[in-house]
Structure formats: C-alpha cells, structure tokens
C-alpha cells in the first residue's frame, strides 16, 4: 500500500541553524501539507501546497518557513533560523483529487529538536 515517507526520523540542531525536512508524498497525489505537533499537544496545520504554490498557510508559518517541491517526488519544509519553540514533530501529508473531502494520508513524522 502506498505511503507517505519522511526523512530524517529525528533531527537535532542548534538554535539559529537551518534545517530541511523531507517528504515523499504518495505518487499520484496532488495536494501536500505540513503539520506540526508539539509534545503532548494537538496536531496543528502549517501550510498547504498545490500546483507548485502555497494555497494556505497558518500564522505559525512565518518568513522563517518555506516549502518547495524541487522535483516530481519530494516535498520539503525549510526552517531558515530555528528557534527553541520550533522543537516538535513535523508531519507531511498528501491527498489525491481536487475535492477537499478526500482523505489526507500522513507520514511517520520527523522529530525536530532545537538545542
């Protein structure tokens, strides 16, 4: 069964450093998302991406964040200058057709630890 994959599973970085989190969505999917989950809290939406552009972003997704689909398979989240409060699990998700009611499938997540 197709699945969303994410690398690395765990990333440790120093405050102020740049990190890139990588995702490979399900191959025929058209819509891509990043969410984050601070330990013990609910999952929060960061950004949605379609047709090579951001379709919606949250207040969390400030100028330090960016997303890119550099080729036909990868979808990346970059944090330019990490802060302590960026420590969280980051989940990538993807879905298929245009209707907003189609299921989003989540990857296993990348645990980001900012020291």
């Amino acid at each position, binding site marked *: 069964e197709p699945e969303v994959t994410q690398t690395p599973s765990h990333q440790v970085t120093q405050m102020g450093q740049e990190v890139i989190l990588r995702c490979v969505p399900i191959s025929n999917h058209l819509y891509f998302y990043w969410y984050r989950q601070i330990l013990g809290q609910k999952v929060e939406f960061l950004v949605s991406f379609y047709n090579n552009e951001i379709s919606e972003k949250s207040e969390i997704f400030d100028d330090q964040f960016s997303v890119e689909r550099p080729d036909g398979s990868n979808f990346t989240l970059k944090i330019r200058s990490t802060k302590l409060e960026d420590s969280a699990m980051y989940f990538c998700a993807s879905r298929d057709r245009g209707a*907003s009611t189609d299921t989003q499938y989540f990857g*296993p997540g990348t645990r980001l630890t900012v020291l």
Partner: protein
Amino acid sequence: GESVGLHLPTLSVQEGDNSIINCAYSNSASDYFIWYKQESGKGPQFIIDIRSNMDKRQGQRVTVLLNKTVKHLSLQIAATQPGDSAVYFCAENSPSNTGKLIFGQGTTLQVKP
C-alpha cells in the same frame, strides 16, 4: 474561532468492551470530518471519515456518528482490543477549501487486558 475538541483526555476500557470517544466542533460550515489514530512515535493514521450529508458511517469495528444540530462527532469502537490503545483525534476540514484540517486535542484510549 476555529476549534475542535474532545470531551475527555483519557478513556480507559476493558478489553472486549465497546469504546465511545466524543468530539465537539465549533464550525458549522465544516462539511467533512475524520477520525485519526496516533500510536506513540507515529503519524496520524486514518480510521474513518464522514461527510456532513450523513449522520452515521460504519467501518470494520468502528462507527462514526455525526450530530450537526449540536455539532458533535463520536467514534465507536466495538470489542476494543489492546491494539486499539492510542491517541484518537477528530479533525474537520476548514471551509477554506484547501484541504486544511483542524484537529482536536485528542483522547488517549487505554485498553486493559
């Protein structure tokens, strides 16, 4: 504002019993709701969904009920098994139509053998 919430942070049930996990949502314009299961250290796993034109949907051992009048969603798990132990989140799609999901706080289901 946007919020989706669950009534209880933790639910403890005996193996073999039925479990009911509840969720209240606030946005009456939402038309799609999903239940996800999250095991420790893993991503949310899709369980079942329901559209707003339905009030009940059944899957394998799971049933989702939607009451739009009181904006309430529930997940029923029949014959709960130890493998059902996890955190369960309800989520609603945002009316923005980008597919953005708004998650609730989560209920931890503990299944006692």
